[in-house]
């Protein structure tokens, strides 16, 4: 094995375990780091401002303690974990915090985050929920408010040209990420689900140029891979929100399956949609983040007359992924207290039934404490689809 390439996965491992390492280094060198939650934040704008976007992650191994003194427990456990580790100083290299209107758990805790962390800069992006022409226009104006606000803080006026350049870099990033998925198509896949998740997660913690370099090196490494790291086993797609710790993915793979596809916020939902080039950059960004990203929090008007037609329009991308990656079963993984996904569980299940795709629905906390319970359910599901 090429020694240089052998190091890239070691590098990935390091950045995954010591998440935020690079951001801290850059901060020490004078870079402004802007932390954010969720795939709905236009990182292009942050990059165009000359700042480094850094995606906040939770930690399933860290019991939530400090966070609970200032925030109710009846909220998304992922968000609570992010809040808890942030309070504990894990991301204290951050200069700013951006939270989008993704869901109630985020929108309703913005003040709490702001005051508890006391960062020099914060901003809430009021992403609309509907896809009308008026919504799109509103969103563009809202993004321009963000642009001005961030520009003031970064002391840099963000030009359309700056945005265009950033868009190009991120489109490149997403192309490379998508290319990584090609290695999942083989049976067994040439890259395991846990491995790829680490790579994609790490990608969100680096400046986009470094992320692009990292993906390039990983692609090179994988291209040279002759042997799959896993054996043939049922091929699983995970559908859910932010699964930013690999423990769950590893559990599925250790139980005798290969995770070959996903519809996750650290996976295809975030990395696959591209931004249009050639026109007004802010308009293109608004379009990507509101329409191209397929997240349940965005209301999509009913397509067709029947439920079936509507389901196809809302969840068809899962069906396409299932075909493209020859998926045997879907695990629908929803956090407790998650409204956007929670309300869609019956509809998603009905859609998967209609395409004869077996589905296991799991409702979970955000902690490794539930591994034992999950293991039995996952194994039972694999036994069911294996026969």
């Amino acid at each position, binding site marked *: 094995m090429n020694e240089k390439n052998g190091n890239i996965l070691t590098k990935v491992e390091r950045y995954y375990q010591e998440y935020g390492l690079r951001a801290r280094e850059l901060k020490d060198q004078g870079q402004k780091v802007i932390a954010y939650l969720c795939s709905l934040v236009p990182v292009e704008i942050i990059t165009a401002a000359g700042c480094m976007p850094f995606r906040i992650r939770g930690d399933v191994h860290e019991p939530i303690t400090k966070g609970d003194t200032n925030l109710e427990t009846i909220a998304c456990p992922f968000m609570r974990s992010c809040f808890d580790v942030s309070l504990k100083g894990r991301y204290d290299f951050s200069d700013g915090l951006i939270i989008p209107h993704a869901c109630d758990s985020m929108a309703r805790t913005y003040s709490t985050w702001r005051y508890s962390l006391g960062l020099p800069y914060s901003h809430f992006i009021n992403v609309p929920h509907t896809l009308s022409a008026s919504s799109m226009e509103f969103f563009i104006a809202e993004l321009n408010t963000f642009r001005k606000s961030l520009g003031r803080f970064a002391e840099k006026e963000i030009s359309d040209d700056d945005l265009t350049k950033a868009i190009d870099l991120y489109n490149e990033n997403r192309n490379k990420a998508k290319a990584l998925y090609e290695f999942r198509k083989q049976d067994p896949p040439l890259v395991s689900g846990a491995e790829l998740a680490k790579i994609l997660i790490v990608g969100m913690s680096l400046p986009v140029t470094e992320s692009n370099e990292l993906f390039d090196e990983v692609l090179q490494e994988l291209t040279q891979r002759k042997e799959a790291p896993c054996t043939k086993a049922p091929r699983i797609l995970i559908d859910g929100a932010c699964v930013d710790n690999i423990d769950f993915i590893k559990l599925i793979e250790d139980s005798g399956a290969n995770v070959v596809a996903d519809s996750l916020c650290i996976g295809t939902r975030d990395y696959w949609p591209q931004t249009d080039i050639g026109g007004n950059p802010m308009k293109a960004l608004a379009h990507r983040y509101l329409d191209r990203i397929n997240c349940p929090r965005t209301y999509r008007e009913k397509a067709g007359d029947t*439920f079936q037609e509507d389901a196809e329009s809302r969840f068809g991308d899962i069906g396409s992924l299932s075909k493209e990656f020859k998926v045997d079963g879907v695990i629908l993984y929803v956090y407790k207290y998650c409204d956007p996904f929670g309300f869609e569980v019956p509809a998603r299940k009905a859609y998967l039934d209609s395409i004869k795709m077996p589905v296991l629905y799991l409702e979970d906390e955000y902690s490794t404490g539930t591994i034992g319970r999950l293991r039995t359910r996952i194994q039972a599901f694999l036994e069911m689809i294996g026969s």
Partner: protein
Amino acid sequence: MAEEEKKEVRKKRRTATKAAASIGPMVKESIGGTIRAKQEGKKLAYTFIVCLYDEILSVMDIVPVWTENYAGVCGAKRDAERFLERAESLGFSRSLCTYALCGLGFDQWREKLGEMPPDAPWGGQARPDMMLSSGQILCDPRNKWYQAAQQFMPDVPIYDVGLPYPLYEDDIEVADVQDYYIKHITEELRGLVTFLEKQTGKKMDYDRLSEFVDLGERTWNMIWETYELRRAVPTPMGTGDAMNTMVPMVFMMGTQQCYDFYLALNKELQDKIARKEGVVEDEKYRLLWGGGLPSWFALTDFNYFNSKGAVFPVETTYRMIEPIYRLNIPDTNDPIERLAWRWFGYWTYWYDKAKKRPGSEPDVERLIQYIEDYQIDGVVMHEAFSCRTWHLGLIWQLNQLKKIYRPIPVLILGKDGEKTKGKRELPSLILESDIIDISSYSEVDTRNRIDAFIETLEQTKKNKV
């Protein structure tokens, strides 16, 4: 008497005002009315309270079915469990909004049977002709609930109205963003009108709408003036009543019936004040209900507070109005624009004030204003587990309030044994259960907490310098 023969005797809830007492029958009539209206061939719309388009629906002769309210009724009658379980059996998590779970369970059952579920409370919830969702207004369930219901009612169309308001930011003034917010809200409302015209085959009568919006604005002022009467000592009306009297405000805004209701309440309160008749004879503690929807099945808890001499002259919950003359609504003849400004003005009402006090936030600023205006001794919050919208941030609000607002003069014992004058924050209490799901509620536990809180209030009073 053997336990098994004893019937469950629940204490009847007492209200301080006749106006509040009239609400039960009013709601029952309203629900029955929707069923009759359906039989008469009128168009029914599932919708949410505090939606901004009450007047629009009235003018278009569309009968609203307030789905949250129906769930509340089931909860208050302690008959929500079977609908919650049904929703669970369909795959919905119990951690979701229990209004929605109740509604979804009810609707799917009604659709399956082709008629109302057996013994449906107050006749049941009528099948709608359309469902009006709300993107951005207040909460995720308003965006997802009806879409989930559409799985069982695919022939019922949905219109999702986006009605945003900006959050409070340090570096942004409301004036900086209001133009594009108002533009968007106005266009969304126009889109709604177009949708409703299509559904009904009728055109909107904008003159009539102007009349309703006009009356709505006057009603806002009337409600504000009326509620402000509760500043009196002793207070003539408490939050327990207000949980009833909010109904016309959120069911029939813009109608003469609504205006008349608050006019009558106004008179009733003035009479009581003249006679120095308070909610309780011996008013000991004045409390602010600082946040959280009430437990609809446990409104008698307010009577329990009363029995200890504690009253609630003011609450933030369901006080969905501010005086119109302070909302800076520009001169315009377009009723849709007036609605948009009313909405935007209401949600940003406390922003400018909050900017003037270091560390303050609009919600906290509002608490401070009420504490001062209504001479409040303590703050109570309620955490309902299934509602993230109104119950996230209450702990933070109390913490922030404690940090920036310490109005009670006390003597503090220093290290050297010397007593110095200091200021302390108001005592506060957080109750926990849910809006509908009674299994989350422990009467014993709740009453214990209330008792302990009363003792704290008593101590604070004693130690006041």
